């Protein structure tokens, strides 16, 4: 204890901490370059107020805007085996995971929740591109299966927001196997007669597009979202020609008959309410501000299956070794 630790250091610290504040208050639109005030931007769901460009939005932020009063209950996703292949490229896979967890504050690339949207009970699942490119590994597979199982159990529609670069290479073939696996999850919904609505957001590519993200009853995309199997760079390298303007963007896919609709994020919620209520044979939703609902206490029958599978360390392997 001396003069330096007691007096000088706190002074220095306080000078620096004061300067930290204003940094994140403004964000530049990647499309038109307008500086946008953070609160205004988040009120507009990360859509540029000047040019309408849709920037990324985290699953949590999206759910806050989707569910009535921002209230939703998370559904626990069974933990898969960590680093199943002991994969290492330039970095170890577990290190990449930790870095992604730190930068996003999320455990993995998918968030599953249930709640009400315009007083319509739903299950929703959203993919996080910020988490290792939203890549589909065993966790994402588990998340979609958990979501589908809950939807079937609770007899609710499932709304899925996709965003991914494709399969998670660090899980090798096991990530590829999530394609048939998530397809089984979609079949559970279809057989239960429940709507499965996919909202494709920027970007949705590779094995994700080639499985659960293209199997919705209704396929909606956000404006200008890149949606494809093979990315534009790969195609340009293969066919060695320039691709047309807007190729593989939402509007282009709509023109080519691959989507039902392209809808602005700010209008998405209303549209999802309208569509799900019609598919479920419910009366039209009451428009306008409703009081926030009571947080839905996780019904016993809903919470159980996730718990059970969580406690079950060894789901039955497909084949013996």
């Amino acid at each position: 204890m001396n003069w330096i630790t007691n007096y000088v250091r706190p002074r220095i610290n306080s000078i620096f901490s004061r300067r930290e504040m204003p940094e994140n208050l403004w964000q530049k639109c990647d499309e038109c370059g307008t500086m946008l005030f953070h609160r205004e931007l988040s009120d507009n769901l990360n859509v540029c107020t000047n040019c309408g460009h849709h920037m990324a939005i985290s699953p949590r932020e999206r759910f806050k805007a989707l569910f009535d009063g921002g209230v939703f209950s998370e559904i626990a996703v069974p933990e898969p085996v960590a680093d199943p292949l002991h994969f290492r490229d330039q970095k170890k896979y577990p290190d990449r995971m930790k870095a992604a967890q730190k930068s996003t504050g999320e455990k993995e690339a998918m968030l599953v929740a249930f709640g009400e949207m315009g007083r319509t009970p739903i299950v929703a699942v959203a993919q996080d591109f910020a988490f290792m490119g939203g890549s589909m590994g065993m966790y994402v597979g588990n998340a979609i299966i958990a979501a589908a199982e809950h939807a079937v159990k609770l007899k609710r529609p499932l709304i899925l927001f996709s965003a991914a670069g494709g399969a998670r290479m660090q899980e090798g073939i096991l990530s590829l196997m999530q394609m048939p696996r998530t397809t089984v999850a979609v079949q559970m919904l279809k057989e239960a007669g429940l709507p499965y609505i996919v909202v494709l957001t920027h970007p949705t590519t590779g094995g994700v597009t080639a499985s659960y993200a293209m199997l919705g009853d209704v396929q909606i995309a956000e404006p200008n979202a890149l949606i494809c199997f093979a990315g534009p760079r790969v195609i340009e390298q293969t066919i060695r020609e320039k691709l047309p303007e807007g190729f593989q963007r939402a509007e282009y896919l709509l023109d080519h008959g691959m989507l039902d609709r392209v809808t602005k994020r700010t209008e998405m919620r209303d549209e999802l309410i309208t569509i799900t209520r019609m598919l479920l044979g419910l009366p039209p939703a009451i428009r306008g501000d409703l009081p926030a609902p009571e947080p839905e206490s996780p019904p016993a029958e809903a919470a159980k299956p996730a718990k059970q599978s969580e406690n079950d360390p060894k789901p039955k392997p497909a084949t013996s070794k």
Partner: protein
Amino acid sequence: MTQYLEFEKPLAEIEGKAEELRALGRANEEMDVADEAAALDVKAEALLRDLYKNLTAWRKCQVARHPERPHCRDYIEALFTEFTPLAGDRNFADDHAVMGGLARLDDRPVMVIGQEKGSDTKSRILHNFGMARPEGYRKAVRLMEMADRFGLPVITLVDTPGAFPGKGAEERGQSEAIARSTEKCLQIGVPLISVIIGEGGSGGAVALATADRVAMLEHSVYSVITPEGCASILWKDAEKMREAAEAMRLTAQELRKLGVVDRLIDEPLGGAHRDRDASIKAVGKALNAMLAEMDGKTPAALIKNRREKFLAMGSKGLAA
């Protein structure tokens, strides 16, 4: 003349020398080269055995892509009778990368579908190097549906670098076509047996290989992305494909350990291309054995078991 792979160069030298000696012997009757040539043959075989004893993952990829490796057409022609190709997706085109049709396997009618890479420049272009477009997957869906309606088992032979990354393919819904093909695999109430005979390239392979039983030839590979693709993304250097191939665990042996593959089919020494007939016979035997395992199962049980198999998939890693 066999085409040698890069790692087979020392072998090429020895076999070349033996060949030269024999040629010399034929030209010059006084020279007795038989013993020397035979000694070289022994040496070559020992080297071949040694090379193939522990192939690295990347070498396996090279063997799996060997241009003389038997392809889908070779298997269909040799193993099936009355093969009657059925063409088209009834929507846009007939994709020659996917061949399929009715055929008999040991007199039993089946639907056989597979990816064909072609065997010379002309046929490779015709078959688009085994890279299917949406029409190929939609044809597969159509044939699987037909098989389901008439109670015919479906056999798929997988050999593709991946689905075709092209402008038209994307415009016509490559991803949707793959997704629907995988979905159809999970819906049909007839046995579905798949053999990966060469390359199992990503979604383009899984769309046909979501099967009751999946077998792989000893030196075939199956992966989520090509080693070159993986290397260029994760290593930022496509030349690191050896490391990427190793890290992805794409060999038949490792996939068997992971429970993704149900059966391995032995290849002749030096790979399937060194004895095509033996490889084809081995695949035929495996197909019959796997089909027999499905005998007497009801459509409902088949669908249920197949779904459960894939639901459990990817919940288990390599044993630590």
